[in-house]
């Protein structure tokens, strides 16, 4: 088969031979697993988690050395210089094998994707190969305690001081930041212009003077979320991504990658059957109902069937929407439909699991730990409709940007951000 060759792709490998090569390498080097490794919902000790991260960094290094890291990333930045079609093929071939799933989201996309799109040549040469080899892991510092969904309302402030910037403020809901190395951080650099015009993005080293990191305990126990406090943190101007006060154009793409999640070509993820961390595997509801003795109860069976239908429908829906966006039949904003569907399905699944676990979801003995977990998961059922932009935001995006309905009234347009009403909760 002949392939298109040009200066950028002097020897672009055709997809079929790439598939064969990937398949052979994966079989040779990665461990086969029964279910997606991220679906094994378990609470690890910190020590075990750090060991697991170290292991996944090492596997990432193997991928990097074999030329399978950053499949769509140009070669000069350490990638394979191939196309999204190759990346999809790799995601198909990796199904059934263990891989560094914990370092995908936030790290390769949005962070690396944003650096590739907005970084200087020096920044790309310095950070992209380091990210691809597993040496540098990025977290995203976007949300703030003053407001999660209104990302452009950032109040963490960066003030210029010669060749440096001085950061003060706080970021929250950064996943796994406690074992990552860098944070991509959206800051306010100008309070005297309209909200979206005074923002700038920086790369912030996490272990750095003035950065204090707290881990957030969730209602159901330890979790992966962190909060960072910045007190006179000095960052060189060389760490700035994009133009001063031009951070929102970076932020728009950042959030696009965030919504795309594992559909992003920068992310390696099982093409089929790989739920996000915390989601139950498809057979798990059957196992739960057996465990609780409800498997023959018609109502329990109806609930299991409902969740199964939702999961099969969601797979087809994501394919339709991702393809539709690619071909231009749907606009970019239609990705919000996938976000809404995931959120709604996941809360429904948590409710069903809670129902199937019966009484053991609220009082359980050691033997029924798996049933008791469903009660604890139920407590944070709404997380999937909150994190990564609430489903209310998704519904606004769908109605306004997809269906063209009138925008909500905003109190932050055409005035300096300094003068935008911030309410009695401000500063808390």
């Amino acid at each position, binding site marked *: 088969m002949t392939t298109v060759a040009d200066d950028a792709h002097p020897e672009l490998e055709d997809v079929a031979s790439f598939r064969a090569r990937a398949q052979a390498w994966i079989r040779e080097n990665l461990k086969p697993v*029964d279910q997606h490794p991220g679906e094994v919902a378990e609470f690890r000790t910190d020590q075990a988690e750090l060991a697991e991260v170290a292991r996944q960094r090492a596997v990432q290094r193997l991928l990097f050395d074999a030329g399978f890291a950053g499949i769509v990333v140009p070669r000069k930045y350490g990638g394979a210089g191939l196309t999204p079609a190759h990346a999809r093929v790799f995601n198909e071939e990796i199904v059934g094998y263990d891989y560094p799933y914990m370092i995908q989201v936030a790290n390769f996309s949005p962070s690396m994707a944003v650096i590739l799109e907005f970084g200087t040549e020096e920044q790309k040469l310095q950070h992209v190969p380091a990210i691809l080899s597993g040496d540098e892991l990025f977290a995203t510092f976007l949300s703030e305690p003053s407001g999660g969904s209104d990302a452009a309302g950032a109040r963490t402030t960066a003030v210029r001081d010669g060749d440096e910037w001085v950061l003060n403020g706080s970021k929250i809901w950064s996943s796994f930041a406690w074992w990552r190395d860098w944070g991509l951080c959206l800051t306010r650099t100008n309070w005297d212009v309209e909200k979206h015009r005074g923002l700038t993005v920086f790369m912030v080293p996490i272990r750095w003077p003035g950065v204090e990191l707290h881990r957030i305990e969730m209602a159901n126990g330890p979790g992966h979320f962190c909060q960072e406090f910045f007190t006179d943190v000095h960052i060189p101007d060389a760490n700035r991504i994009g133009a001063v006060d031009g951070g929102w154009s970076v932020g728009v793409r950042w959030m696009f990658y965030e919504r795309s999640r594992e559909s992003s070509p920068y992310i390696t993820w099982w093409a089929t059957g790989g739920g996000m961390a915390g989601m139950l595997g*498809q*057979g798990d*509801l*059957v*196992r739960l109902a057996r465990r609780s003795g409800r*498997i023959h109860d*018609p109502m329990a*069976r*109806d609930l*299991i*069937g*409902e969740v*199964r*239908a*939702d999961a*099969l*429908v*969601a797979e*087809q*829906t994501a*394919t*339709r*929407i991702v*393809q*539709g966006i690619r*071909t231009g*039949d*749907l606009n970019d904003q*239609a990705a919000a*439909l996938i976000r*809404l*569907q995931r959120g*709604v399905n996941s809360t429904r699944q948590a409710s069903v699991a809670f129902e199937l676990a019966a009484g053991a979801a609220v009082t359980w003995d050691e033997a029924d730990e798996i049933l008791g977990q469903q009660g604890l998961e139920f407590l944070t059922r709404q997380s999937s409709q909150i994190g990564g932009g609430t489903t*209310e935001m*998704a*519904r*606004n995006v*769908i*109605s*306004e940007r*997809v*269906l063209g*309905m*009138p925008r*909500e009234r905003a109190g932050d347009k055409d005035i300096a951000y300094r003068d935008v009403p911030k309410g009695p909760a401000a500063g808390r």
Partner: protein
Amino acid sequence: MELQLAAEQEMFAGTTRKFLAQHMPVAELRAMRHDPAGFPPDYWRRGAELGWTSLLVSEEDGGGGISASPLSDLAIVAYEFGRHAAAGPLASSNVVAGALSRGGSPEQRSAILPGLLAGQLMATWCLAEPRPDDAFGTVTAQAAALADGVCLSGVKAPVEGAAQAAQFLVTARSGDGLTQLLVPADAPGVTMTPMRSIDLTRRFAAVRFDDVRLPRSAVLGEVGRAGSAVDWQLRVAVALTLAEMVGTMDRAFEMTVQWAFDRYSFGRPLASYQELKHRFADMKLWLEASHAISDGAVRAVAEGAPNAWELLSAGKAYVGCHGIELLQDCVQIHGGIGVTFDHDMHLYLRRLTLGSRLYGSVAEHRERLTASLEAQVEEESADDDRR
């Protein structure tokens, strides 16, 4: 419907769309309310000329698809039927045509197919049975093999288009296996009782077979060995029903979005109220998801994919639930006018409600999904034991 159709499918869809808009506009469906057939005499024949009955029939039998996937072509027609709440037994007559072309003897094919293809003769499938044997896929009607033929007894209901049909394809039981019989509507022992239906134009009847004596030549395929043919027929019928249901959702949603922009209250359009915008967002999700699962199921059936039944059941369970919620919410957003006979909304609500119960209810398809998941879990634990 797929976001991108092949050029020839696009043209094909356009022809049916135009024909339905001209010859069976939604407003005229009301005039057919008491018509015994539910459509004017030459409507079906003209539809047949557009390809409504020939897509699942092989080229050597005089049929043929538009694209490489004839079932997808037919699903496009079903989708347009949904968008127009159109009259006519689309699924049941195509199931018979396809089953004959796939498994009929040369005599059976030449006797029935030309009339079916031309739209001059109608035939329908008799599968479902009345209470207490009304669970999806239950067959108790008996086809007993005799020395010189077969004796059929049992009741089938609902049977679509029974009053117009000259031929019935009857699925019956012979011991452990299934048998399919081609029964002329005027055969001695066949009686038909019209039923009432929630849909304005789709007609159903109960058909009773009292010791109907049939020659061996009436058997489609072999006695007791029709299981896989029946399974194919069911897959096709569910796929077409799904596509039609999605068509009704699509049209109802489109009408209601337009209404939300046009209707003002308190000096602003309904579309400006966040409460309604959020409901539209949910409905848009249900609609896109329904398109996706329906198209995925149609493709899986067309390709003979091993997960075809899972996708069909997921579709029927999902669309049967969320499609109806979408329609009822469209009624709600229209306000008082939405519950009147003059408004078109109930035509779509009727069609979708009918579809949600034909070929398996939401509950029945959920149960199928659970059973198949259980089987997968069994298989996994068996694998684990072997390791």
